[in-house]
């Protein structure tokens, strides 16, 4: 028995504790009490406001909703803007040639490389999955035999 055990010795024994369980009706299980106290089920009282106070409450509520909507829209707009600007940059790279004698689109390919993104010496996840956007030049080798 551990030293932290606080149950009285006679209750800790098997036979006695069984008897205790049977006579449990007088007070509810402490686990239930715990649950009940931590998860109150009673519905909170409704807000009862007089006219002016209800209107003020409504005004504040509407302003809060409006603020949230504006925030959402602003964030979405910002994301869209960033995406567009990345897209434009990539397009610009794709159409430029160089540096030096490199052909058109070299910089784009380099920029799109994902070396190290998936870990050291790892393979991009796209290559481990069937590719749809970059199909092979010959989709199916019909002449293949074992």
């Amino acid at each position, binding site marked *: 028995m551990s030293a932290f055990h606080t149950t009285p010795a006679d209750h800790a024994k098997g036979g006695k504790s069984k008897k205790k369980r049977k006579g449990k009706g007088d007070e509810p299980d402490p686990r239930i009490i715990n649950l009940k106290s931590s998860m109150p089920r009673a519905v909170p009282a409704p807000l009862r406001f007089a006219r002016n106070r209800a*209107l003020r409450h*409504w005004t504040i509520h*509407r302003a809060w909703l409006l603020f949230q909507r504006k925030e959402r829209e602003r964030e979405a707009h910002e994301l869209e803007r960033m995406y567009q600007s990345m897209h434009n940059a990539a397009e610009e790279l794709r159409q430029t040639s160089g540096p030096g004698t490199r052909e058109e689109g070299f910089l784009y390919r380099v920029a799109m490389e994902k070396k190290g993104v998936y870990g050291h010496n790892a393979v991009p996840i796209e290559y481990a999955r069937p590719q749809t956007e970059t199909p092979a030049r010959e989709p199916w080798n019909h002449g293949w035999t074992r």
Partner: protein
Amino acid sequence: MSSCRRVARPLAQSLRQERLLQSSTTHFARSFSRSASRQDEVTTTTPPPSSTTPPPISSTTSIDQLEAAATKPRMQERLLDPDTTTAHWAERKLIRMGTPPVGSRRRRAAIRSSENVPFEQLPYQAFQEARKVLQEDREQKVRAIATELAKIKRLEDTPADQVPGGERKKNLRLASLRKHVQELKILADINDPVVKRKFEDGFGDMNKPIYRHLAEKKWRGMPCRLITQRISQLAIVPDVLPKFEPVADVQLFFRRIKVEPGEMIDSRVSEVPPRLKVQVFNAGERLVSVVVMDSDVPNAETDSFERRCHYLAANVPIGPDQPSLPLGKVDKETQLAVPWLPAFSQKGAPYHRLSVFILEQKPGETMDIAKLRELYSGRDGFSLKSYRDKFGLNPVGFNIFRTIWDEGTAGVMERAGVPGVDVEFKFKRVYSLKGEKKARGWEAKRSKPKYRGLWKYSRNIHGMNRKR
């Protein structure tokens, strides 16, 4: 100082301090609505622009000034105001005069000792911050409306052959721009607490799009659902019109009694022509035609039901701000085609559905009343569908009540000069086509002579008659 005044004093003091603070800084607490800020203020049709000075505050003076300046008769006069009185004798006198004091004495004391701060200037921080946010949004919306209106103006001024897409595209574009402006107008005002308060009090100006929008939203709640349910469950849609979707609110009153849609009405109540309250939710005045028809007139010869016109009027002007339409008070020469015939139902007939239809006429067209009289003064065999098709009408509003034979119907029919008071409809007895069955069961078996010994048990069973 009475107890109620003592209670109200700290509130009054704090309010007064706040006022001083505010007025010393700036009048930032300006209403962003263009309507009157309080219901007791007078509403002008052309309100001043929002850059002018705020409306005058503190029409009632505070307690201290009041006590200092009060001469005896002025004080008495003041105490006879039902909104602010706290004196017992004044209350009793007001009750005797028929204008009882408003609210509790505590409330009245609070009102009296407060400076009459307009609602939108109440010094609550969250409220004022919220108002700032909403005000800013409203300004944005107003600016958007201005730019959209400029766009519309520009598009209207360019001839159609210079617009890409031609005349059709131009019209489409104009329509969608106008719709957008309407939406913006609603959005600009939808967050205004003053607008909400005015609408709830029923003081909303229905010529303004925001109040029409709020009214429509309210109608689309329960009343519209109720009416559409009545249309389907009382089978108005296949019986009277093949297709119908109401878009206007129609309320029906007989004298002072409001009729719920589909209610059974006593025939003495529906003897007089009803009063309609038609609330349309789109702008502009228009002419409507009103039809009341009975779609359950029993016909014994053909063993079926027919229809009858109880009332027909046309060219009745209706607008969003003039909803009242008393059917008894339409113009006899230019509007009334078929006068009111009281709703009645003969004895034994099932209930009659009397439906009230509001049909919108084509814009800018008046109907020929003489022709209507000639066509429909016979009343019987009226078909709403053919009426609608003949004159190009659009049914917008609907209400219905039902009537059945009751103790007053005979008198009503007599006064209206309708024959057939003594007619009673009866269902023909339909006999079963099956042959008779022999009696079966324990008792039937035991009542045969074979079981004569058991008759003393089986004879007096309830429901079996075997008297010998």
